[in-house]
């Protein structure tokens, strides 16, 4: 139940996160997504927090969805098992890289 509920919660977070992300990165003109602008924003710790939550929510939401597809569509047991591993490992790698950029760039 919790994983399902979290999927919904992350969904709601993403709606707001994406709104912000899109406004900032696509509609506010070039100055907003130049390297310098991005870096400047990232130096603010609140931005780091926002980005990390956004990242985690996106990754969780996406991979929970994929997990559902595996549950529903993949019948062959070995393949299913492999996919299950991938669904745990790939997001972990993504989160690792993601956090690395946010924190250390």
């Amino acid at each position: 139940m919790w994983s399902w509920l979290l999927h919904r919660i992350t969904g709601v977070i993403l709606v707001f996160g994406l709104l912000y992300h899109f406004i900032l990165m696509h509609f506010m003109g070039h100055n907003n997504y130049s390297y310098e602008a991005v870096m400047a924003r990232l130096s603010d710790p609140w931005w780091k927090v926002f980005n990390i939550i956004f990242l985690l929510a996106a990754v969780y939401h996406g991979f929970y969805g994929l997990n559902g597809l595996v549950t529903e569509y993949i019948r062959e047991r070995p393949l299913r098992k492999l996919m299950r591993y991938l669904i745990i490992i790939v997001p972990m790698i993504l989160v690792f890289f993601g956090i690395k950029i946010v924190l250390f760039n």
Partner: protein
Amino acid sequence: MSKFYTFRIKRYLPEESPSSRWDEFRIKLESMERVLDGLIKIKENLDGTLTFRKSCAHGVCGSCAMKINGLNRLACQTLVKDLPELIEIEPLPSLPVIKDLVVDMTLFFEKNDRVLPYLINDDPPPERERIQSQEDQHKILESITCIMCGSCTTSCPVFWADKEYLGPSALLKAYRFLFDTRDKATDSRLERITGEHGVWRCHSIFNCVEVCPKEIDITKHILKIKRLAVKKGFKGGD
């Protein structure tokens, strides 16, 4: 007023051929006659080997569910006047076909058995009936009209792909007891239906609602189960 209709029927006669074929029959029917009447006329006059289930013929037993013009319906409750001249009939999707329009419902009923489909209350029964307010009885009123025809579960795209999914019918049955004030097995029942292939696999697709011959809003009931599980802080699988 009578009119000619063409029944295009998907046939499968395992003792004749391992593959299925399409047969066409042209018959005259009154406008108020049902698809079931058409099938019976074909069996009586044109092809005695045509096989389908039937019993009550007025939509209460659930025997004659089949796919008619791309939708699961009861043949006894579908009037030909509401259909085009070409009526295409197939067995219920996604269940093994035994013969012609007869499918093997074993899997469907097994799902039902998994949700503890009976009232459980081990308290010593009172001398008279258990009291239940009209309001509480109304909570299950819609769910008890289910006739288990199988239209809903076999219309569900999730069930088509995932045969382990409980499906709308079994979940509706679970609802019928979860929300019956006389039942005491809420937790064990929730445990049965919140597994990986349980209630969370419902994606509110509403195919089941579209086809239910008893017009039960099945999705509404499943959503209520989800909210109940959340309210109970239920820790079952996902």
